[in-house]
């Protein structure tokens, strides 16, 4: 075998990280981590949010400097001061949030930061030709002259891979690459990744999704709280086993659901048209009905109108046409407070932006909606005794881990902030619950808890609209699943009967043939 890759760059036979320690104020993010990857191998790095996966690879990519420990490439020690150094050493990284400039074309994004064959003047034609060669070699489909903002998420990811290949990446780090893809796009990505491994690249695949790790990797290393729990061959590993390594205790992968007791329609959406931020219609006439006692899951790839729908329902985004009937009342143009008063609760997608005030204490965040009502206030003055009592009770009841109720909410972990929001919204005994990405960025323990609570709410007769990009979550909780694509409902399927493949096709905009 030659020691060169098809791109003409030198192979990385082996990359080894030894005893890596990285501290952040108050956190030990990596605690003496050992990790290695070899040419031709896909090595998965598995762990919860906050386990230290991203921190580890960011040190490999020169974005952070390790406090202790060493990195070796082909047996020689290397020190990376910035991404420039690690790119030069043949390391490429596909970030979780794409590192693309939306207003530049594909070619410009690839050429960015590279010397040109014509000195200071850009040489985009040459870059374009090399991109075509790479696309052929690795079987990638990309339109070189399209602007990034015109591309689908899957295409954008391919541009990221191209960028790395173009720079001669012999070792490629993929940080949660599947989080934003449809199941079919994931399949395409996996084909590309296997192809790259076959050509002699070394790949590090970061994920918290067990089935993906099992499907793509040869070896898996599990991180928990900054420490390596273990490294093992993927062959023969099971989901349950890996989940337990990841969380540190047995995990429920399947929820017990009580039989469906569907009641009246509590939330009715009729032909809803809503404008997005770009001024075009983000929702093009959506109709949905959510019944008491059911969870209606809304699946879809990010950016197909989910955020606009949630905001329109919460009263945060004006409705162009159509109607929203909440509990029999037309609230299409009503303010959020009217909706709240009519029994609607809202768990927003961006908890720090729309769900909480980060410098406020836990107690203050609890009363954001109801501060003007008894028992929290009497006409003018806040009743701090009642506020404290209620807050203490909710912190207990919803298992929010906080030092005190006076702690600013920003000092809590994502999972605990989400539990605080959940406590606030559910303690109002909602008739209708809009839950948007309720477990995004939340660890498995807290996710499990949040899911249980949503199911309890279902039993109590709440009509829940669960908007999520996590198909596993949708499938685990929903009684019916609606799929949204480019602002339209592609179809509604039964929660139990739906298969991942079927949903994946619908998420790509392909209408189901069967009856609803």
């Amino acid at each position, binding site marked *: 075998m030659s020691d060169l890759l098809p791109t003409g760059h030198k192979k990385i036979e082996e990359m080894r990280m030894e005893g890596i320690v990285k501290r952040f104020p108050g956190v030990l993010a990596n605690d003496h981590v050992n990790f290695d990857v070899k040419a031709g191998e896909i090595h998965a790095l598995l762990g919860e949010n906050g386990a230290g996966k991203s921190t580890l690879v960011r040190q490999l990519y020169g*974005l952070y400097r390790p406090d202790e420990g060493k990195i070796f490439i082909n047996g020689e020690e290397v020190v990376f001061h910035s991404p*420039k150094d690690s790119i030069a050493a043949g390391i490429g990284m596909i970030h979780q949030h794409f*590192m693309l*400039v*939306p207003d530049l074309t594909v070619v410009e*994004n690839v050429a*960015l930061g*590279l010397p040109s064959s014509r000195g200071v003047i850009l040489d985009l034609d040459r870059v374009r030709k090399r991109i075509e060669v790479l696309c052929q070699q690795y079987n990638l489909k990309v339109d070189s002259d399209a602007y990034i903002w015109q591309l689908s998420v899957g295409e954008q990811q391919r541009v990221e891979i191209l960028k790395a290949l173009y720079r001669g990446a012999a070792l490629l780090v993929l940080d949660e690459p599947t989080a934003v893809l449809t199941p079919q796009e994931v399949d395409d990505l996996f084909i590309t990744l296997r192809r790259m491994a076959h050509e002699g690249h070394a790949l590090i695949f970061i994920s918290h999704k067990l089935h993906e790790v099992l499907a793509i990797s040869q070896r898996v290393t599990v991180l928990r709280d900054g420490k390596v729990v273990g490294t093992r061959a993927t062959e023969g590993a099971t989901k349950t086993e890996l989940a337990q390594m990841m969380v540190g205790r047995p995990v429920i992968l399947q929820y017990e659901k009580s039989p469906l007791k569907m009641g009246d329609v509590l939330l009715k959406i009729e032909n809803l048209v809503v404008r997005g931020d770009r001024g075009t219609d983000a929702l093009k006439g959506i109709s949905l009905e959510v019944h008491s006692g059911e969870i209606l899951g809304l699946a879809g790839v990010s950016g197909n109108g989910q955020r606009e729908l949630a905001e329109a329902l919460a009263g945060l985004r004006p409705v162009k046409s159509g109607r929203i009937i909440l509990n029999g009342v037309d609230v299409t143009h009503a303010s959020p407070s009217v909706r709240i008063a009519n029994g609607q609760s809202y768990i927003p997608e961006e908890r720090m932006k729309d769900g909480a005030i980060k410098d406020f204490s836990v107690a203050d965040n609890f009363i954001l909606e109801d501060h003007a009502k008894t028992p929290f206030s009497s006409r003018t003055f806040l009743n701090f005794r009642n506020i404290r009592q209620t807050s203490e009770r909710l912190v207990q009841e919803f298992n929010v881990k906080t030092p005190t109720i006076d702690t600013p909410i920003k000092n809590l972990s994502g999972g605990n902030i989400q539990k605080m929001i959940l406590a606030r919204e559910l303690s109002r005994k909602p008739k209708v619950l809009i839950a948007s990405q309720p477990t995004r960025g939340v660890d498995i323990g807290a996710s499990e808890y949040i899911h249980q609570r949503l199911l309890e709410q279902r039993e109590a007769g709440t009509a829940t609209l669960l908007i999520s990009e996590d198909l596993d979550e949708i499938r685990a909780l929903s009684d019916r699943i609606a799929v949204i694509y480019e602002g339209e409902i592609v179809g509604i399927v039964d929660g139990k009967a739906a298969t991942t493949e079927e949903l994946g096709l619908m998420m790509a905009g392909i209408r189901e043939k069967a009856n609803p």
Partner: protein
Amino acid sequence: MAELFTLPVLLGIFYSGIRLATPYLYAAIGETFAQRSGVLNLGVDGIMLMGAYTGFYIAMKTENLLLGLLGAAAAGFLMGLLMAVVSVSLQAEQGISGIGLNLFGLGLSTLLFKVTLGGVESIRGFQPIRIPLLGQIPYLGDIFFNHNLLVYGAFLLVPIANFILNKTTFGLKVRAVGQNPQAADTLGVNVTLIRYTTVCLGGILAGIAGASLSLALINLFQENMTSGMGFIAVALVYFGGWRPWGVLGGALLFSFVNALQLWVQVKGINIPSDIAVMMPYILTIIALTFSGRRARQPQALTKPFERGEN
């Protein structure tokens, strides 16, 4: 009104329109670079004043206009550097530090003026150069090809800036840094260096813009002689949609209306002079309201960059 539409007056309006666009072009093109890289520099007016003063003082003492121009550029560079240190390295709020820089430039130029010059004096500034052949074309020759060096320089700057922004590796880095500095950083682009370069370049050009007043258009220095031109330049960047050719369009529109109102006053047409003077500014406000190009705004404008934040 009819007296405005005589040939000599129309020629005059066009000629002064082009002349008057000069300081705006230098300042606004410089600001375009800074903003495309994500730095809003509101201190342009103060930098122009420093450039105007320094250029004038050196030219007067050395009797060398080019040395004066060089001095103005150097003064602008130092002011730009100051802005870059405060807003890029120390990550201060850009709007506020720009206003501070502006007041600093106003105060310092006034102080230096009072200490070193004492009173208003004038010099013989850059003189018009009639370009051979082109300058002989009837009418057009008078309007376009009979200007001083700084006017030619300002108009040449537009295609040059356009080329640098769109066709060079540096320009690509500038655009990327202004849109998504994190992405540029991960590709090994030095975000800080790029921003320092553009802000200093903007400073140099603002300094020259000031010198174009004191060495070519008005040929004297007095306290606060820019009277807010630098802010108009910033507005022109928005108006031009962050593109050099757009900035040129805005600068021409603004200065033509300005030239028109000057001639209205010269001809003694019965419009209150205060209203006439307001015309270009009112036009700017209206144009900005309706230009509606927010979508083109660099996404990272006014946002300091910190590695590792998403």
